[in-house]
């Protein structure tokens, strides 16, 4: 590297500009990731934590234990996470898509309504989680009150104390949080379609449903792919919402991989097992993440 100020080659200068952020991320993300991998191959728990001389490498024992031990919750946590993610994304996407179609029309109040729906996405998830926890309560919970007064429920139920309904509750809360993200991304996609295309479709006698499936959806496929893959990644790693609403309970019914990894490390102090569980989560996300990057790589700036 030349050291003469502005005579630095453009290439080196570009790298130089990126270096501080890169080094920062290496220290606070890259290095901990490697440490986490090493930790997952050791036997660090509450007994060996303070005694490095008793720590030993155990290979992939922790991973095997997580998948085969009878008392390991990981397989259940993976299934729960898949259910949570698929259910959330399914409804978020459909509702978000519908809202995007609605707000793609110009009508009085349009930008105000659209703007306000954004806010659920910005709120600290902790607060949103507590708010929904309150709304799903047996005593004083408004959701029970609505459902009983509409005669959908015979009598109020303990949403968060029964496995299935607890899962419903966290999914409902997560849908509320995630709709704006889906809506905005699809809306951006919709604005790239020129009105002429719709006009010519109208002239050809296509009805609204045909236009939707034959024109709109194929034309915004890149946006749809982004929403679905990114949505998957963001939902699959959700931690705070579930930690606040159910803490993974009742009896692991809403335990996700992220909450389980946290519980193993910071409540049961099985640091190595927790690290292994976090790595399993990472691997799943990485596969989907690479898929996402490939799709944007094909049609975007990189």
């Amino acid at each position, binding site marked *: 590297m030349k050291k003469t100020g*502005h005579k630095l080659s*453009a*290439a080196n*200068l*570009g*790298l130089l*500009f*990126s*270096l501080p952020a890169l080094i*920062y*991320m290496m220290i606070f*993300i890259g290095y*901990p*990731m490697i*440490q986490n991998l090493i930790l997952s191959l050791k036997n660090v728990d509450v007994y060996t934590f303070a005694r490095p001389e008793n720590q030993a490498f155990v290979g992939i024992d922790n991973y095997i234990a997580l998948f085969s031990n009878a008392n390991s919750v990981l397989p259940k946590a993976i299934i729960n996470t898949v259910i949570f993610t698929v259910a959330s994304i399914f409804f978020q996407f459909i509702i978000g898509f519908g*809202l995007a179609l609605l707000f793609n*029309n110009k*009508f*009085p*109040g*349009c930008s105000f*309504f659209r703007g306000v*729906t*954004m*806010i659920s996405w910005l709120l*600290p*998830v*902790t607060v949103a989680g*507590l*708010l*929904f926890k309150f*709304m799903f*309560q047996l005593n*004083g919970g*408004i959701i029970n*009150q609505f459902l009983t007064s509409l005669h959908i429920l015979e009598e109020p139920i303990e949403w968060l104390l029964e496995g299935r309904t607890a899962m419903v509750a966290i999914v409902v809360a997560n849908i*509320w949080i995630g*709709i704006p993200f889906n809506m*905005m*991304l699809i*809306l951006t*996609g919709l604005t790239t379609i020129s009105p002429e295309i*719709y006009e010519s479709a109208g002239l050809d006698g296509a009805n609204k449903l045909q236009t939707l499936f034959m024109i709109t959806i194929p034309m915004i496929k890149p946006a749809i792919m*982004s929403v679905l893959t*990114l949505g998957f990644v963001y939902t699959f*790693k959700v931690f*705070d919402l579930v*930690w*606040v609403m159910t803490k993974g309970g009742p009896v692991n019914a809403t335990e996700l991989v992220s909450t389980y*990894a*946290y519980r193993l490390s910071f409540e049961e102090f099985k640091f190595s097992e*927790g690290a292994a569980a*976090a*790595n399993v*989560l*990472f691997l799943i*996300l990485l596969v989907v993440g690479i898929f996402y990057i490939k799709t*944007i790589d094909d049609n975007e*700036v*990189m």
Partner: protein
Amino acid sequence: MKKSKKNMLSLIIIGACIFVVFIFPLYWMLVTALKTQLEIFQIPTPLWPRDLTFEAFEKQLSQSSDTLQGFKNSIIIAVGATVISTVLSIPASYGLARFNFKGRKLIILLFLITQMLPSTLVLTALYVMFAKVKLLNNYWAPILADATLGIPFSVIILRTYFISIPKELDEAAKIDGCGHIKAFIKIMLPIAKPGIVVAAVFSFVYAWGDLIYGITFMTNPTMRPITSSIYNYVQQYQTLWNSTMAFGIIAISPVVLIFIFMQKYIVSGLTNGAVKA
């Protein structure tokens, strides 16, 4: 395309209905904070406070409560994280937008991937690291960790922003005798200001909303960020919902203010950061 008035009216009505459903949880938070405990547990509970009281807010804002301390801690942590994230992201995104160098694509890819990492992946190692240098229960621990949430996002949206600025501006600056760095500071930074605001806003919102780093690194109650202190408050006072909701409203107030004043920026940031990547 001409739309009939009737069509327009139905759009407004649908829009308004969605608005009501969407905003209801927030309305409910406010209403609950203004009710008495008695009214909250009344069957059926009234849809607005009949017996309006500011007691819950007064309680949360009093000297003895943790709310204001948590608020202050969160401001320090979120501002610190925002400064680090923005200061590091601006040059990085400029370098990645303007210069073609070996490994550029790989670096962009790394930033994209870090955006998708679960916090639990680095949590234990960070905890050990901060414990070693005695940073637990110190503002620096969550500041340093929260900045990693903002950096990838900021780099990605600022890069698209710098790409959208015409290259001729750099060239012109160079003809005027500015070096690369001077051109960057004098010409690019002022033009990129809206992009920088978006990046800073998102870094702040991410740091403000963090729970996992806060509850792990800050075990001392007086050092907790507000998300962690409201979480602990609910553990302690299970059914004091009016106080909890008042606490919640105080906790979301900075984000709501940011949202009101910077809505335009936020929308552009959300879409640029995710779709264009």
